[in-house]
């Protein structure tokens, strides 16, 4: 710390003495900033009218702070509106799963409906999370730098974190191996994202759901037999497809930056 200035020097400074040279003034001001004792000396040295003015200003500021609006409470989680748009679809997906479990428990001779519809369950909420039709502010979203693969993956992950426990309960309740309900649904989610880069995520989800229903669900319900793609040893195939589709998604990362009118 710099040496304390003499009281005489302080009172000359307080009086606004113009004879004080700049170097002395600067040194003293630097010292005053860090020394409370000298600031007290300075406060005593200024003339009463100045002290009065300072007091009035301080009081004015204090009352302003006391009577004005308080600081906005900071929300830890920013409101995004995504949850509100996705929640109805999550509930629909959960209800579908519950009905599948009841169906499977009731009609034991039929092929497992839980396994048949599990791949399609995450598609509904994933499509809702990245849909131009459900997002009123999509045109603003489409012009922001954050719009792109990472935001899409973030929302997809959030959906999966909500859907997978539902699938787990249904799978556990009906006694199926996790490889047969988890891997196909992850595969279809990855497929939705990969195809979504071309035609839009919600159209991709709808297309895949229709193809799966027509090509697999309907025939196996008609023939009362679980298809080969959902048999016990099919999981390495599902795993391989999922990994390949995820790779496609990352290779085409740039495609997710546009959310234009010609796609979702």
């Amino acid at each position, binding site marked *: 710390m710099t040496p304390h200035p003499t009281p005489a020097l302080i009172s000359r400074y307080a009086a606004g003495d113009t004879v004080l040279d700049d170097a002395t003034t600067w040194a003293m001001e630097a010292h005053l900033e860090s020394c409370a004792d000298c600031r007290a000396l300075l406060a005593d040295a200024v003339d009463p009218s100045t002290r009065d003015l300072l007091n009035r200003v301080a009081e004015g500021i204090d009352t302003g702070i006391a009577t004005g609006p308080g600081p906005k409470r900071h929300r830890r989680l920013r409101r995004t509106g995504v949850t509100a748009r996705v929640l109805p679809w999550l509930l629909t997906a959960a209800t579908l799963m519950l009905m599948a479990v009841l169906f499977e428990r009731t009609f034991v001779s039929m092929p497992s409906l839980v396994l048949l519809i599990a791949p399609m369950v995450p598609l509904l909420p994933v499509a809702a999370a990245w849909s131009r039709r459900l997002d009123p502010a999509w045109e603003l979203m489409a012009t922001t730098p954050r719009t792109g693969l990472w935001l899409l993956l973030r929302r997809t992950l959030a959906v999966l974190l909500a859907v997978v426990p539902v699938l787990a309960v249904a799978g556990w309740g009906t006694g199926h191996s996790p490889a047969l309900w988890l891997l196909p649904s992850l595969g279809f989610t990855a497929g939705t994202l990969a195809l979504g880069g071309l035609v839009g995520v919600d159209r991709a989800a709808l297309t895949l759901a229709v193809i799966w229903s027509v090509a697999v669900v309907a025939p196996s319900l008609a023939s009362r037999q679980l298809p080969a793609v959902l048999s016990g040893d099919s999981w390495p195939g599902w795993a391989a497809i999922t990994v390949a589709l995820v790779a496609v998604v990352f290779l085409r990362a740039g495609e997710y930056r*546009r959310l234009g*009118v010609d796609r979702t």
Partner: protein
Amino acid sequence: MTNGEIMMRTVSVAETAPTTYAWTVYAEKLQVRAGRHLAVNGLDLALGTGVHGLLGPNGAGKTTLMRALATVLKPAGGRLSLLGEDVTGNADLPNVRRSLGYLPQHFGFYPRFTVREFVEYMAWLKEMPQAVIPGAVQRAIERVGLADRADSRMKTLSGGMLRRAGIAQAIVNDPELLLLDEPTVGLDPEQRLDFRELLREIGVDGCVLVSTHLVEDVAVACTDVVLVNEGRLVWQGTAGELAQQGGASDAGDSATERGYSALLRAHRGQVSA
């Protein structure tokens, strides 16, 4: 003392670096599709700093052009560079978008959000640093005169207030390129004056493009006028020059309106000839 530190802001190298491009917006033979139709077809345009008014009859391709400049639509042909970066592909989009502000013609919003929540969310989407967001949001809301309604839900706002909330989200990141599609719809005369003032302020060191039907808005608030018709550039010049284009025989109540109709008529004559 910490007080001194709060007052100062670190200026990054990127901020002080001179710009390396001649035009904020540069389009060459630009083609943009609206559905199957080429709404912008062979448009050449160069815009620098200032407030530019985009005029044209309905269906001239104004909104499609705005959407292409806002990087919502991908150009179908030609070249488009914004802030010196080519945006015909997808590569440089995030860089450009960080310096972009956009108010669409149909401003979609979340009814249950407060104005502050909405502008904050947009600021986050624009990748503004977490620490500056609350201050920038408050400033943007104050600049459009909505501070007293900052914590009201958006569904309770009037049409003019919503428009101003839309302008607030567009300017929250201090954009270098600000695109406003019909921003004065629903504003009363006094708000319109404030809005023109705001435009001039931003136009000092940024590029502002305002699409409008109101020729008078352009005459007073814009430094430069861009006239488009059928997806092409018809004329570009200052607002004063536009007023000189018309003669006494042209339709319109003011010199600017007469200039506007004279230019359009001349262009239609050329196209049909």
